[in-house]
């Protein structure tokens, strides 16, 4: 009885956050701010639903899979946000008119798709142990 109530509460809270993520994607003024809403609320919402599943079934196998699913969503949703934001910069998606500052603008090389650091950090000597790779594999 008790676990049913806990699972129901978790499911409803998770669904509420998912709804907020959807609403955020609709309401926010530009691409990057939409990514804010969907990345955070989506990750927590699906995590809560997965915990509800684990509570409902109460089996080791299900719990392990639910935890793995939560972990992978938390690992992958920021990556999705990063790729979408990058694509937005390359295709020139307009920013909200009220943006305060954009230090990334113009730093992408359109041809080679490399990203330069701002001048003030570029000449900094490699930090600490000096093993910062210059030919980053990424």
């Amino acid at each position: 009885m008790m676990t049913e109530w806990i699972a129901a509460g978790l499911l409803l809270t998770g669904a509420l956050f998912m709804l907020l993520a959807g609403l955020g994607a609709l309401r926010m003024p530009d691409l990057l701010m939409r990514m804010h809403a969907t990345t955070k609320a989506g990750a927590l919402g699906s995590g809560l639903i997965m915990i509800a599943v684990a509570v409902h079934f109460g089996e080791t196998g299900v719990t392990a899979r639910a935890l793995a699913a939560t972990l992978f969503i938390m690992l992958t949703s920021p990556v999705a946000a990063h790729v979408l934001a990058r694509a937005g910069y390359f295709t020139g998606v307009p920013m909200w008119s009220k943006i305060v500052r954009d230090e990334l603008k113009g730093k992408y090389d359109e041809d080679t798709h490399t990203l330069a650091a701002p001048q003030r950090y570029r000449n900094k000597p490699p930090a600490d142990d000096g093993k910062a790779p210059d030919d980053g594999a990424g």
Partner: protein
Amino acid sequence: MNGLTWNIMLALIWVAMTGNFTGSGLAIGFLLGYLLLGVTLRDVPRFSGYIRKVPRVIRFLFFFIKELVRSNFRVAYDVLTPTDYMRPGVIAVPLEAHTDGEITLLANLISLTPGTLSLDVSTDRRVLYVHMMYLDDPEAAREEIKYFEKRVLELLR
């Protein structure tokens, strides 16, 4: 073998000895193994780092969950109220993290905490570009992210 491997081995031995092949049995074994290592081997340099790190990792986990929940309430508030007073901006944050793993973990954690979203790492890996929802003072925001980075790197190194 490092501390973590030993701890996992002790947990597996506990599971085998008690015959309790469940997640909670493994968790109890892990805890007992950690206490055993902490009491008997705390002066051995090879283990002392691991023994000190475990409570830090747990504390960081709770800190991170708290931040994640806080960021969600913030997003909920932002979504449900008028957007006029937001001050979004993109800033460059110099990185101390070097390896792929460190940078990936840091960028992911930044994306999941309130008001910040990591966009990209420069090709020379010197800076991380972060989008902020409320950018009032760029230098203060940079400091805040540097502090967060320090906490993450403490766990990894």
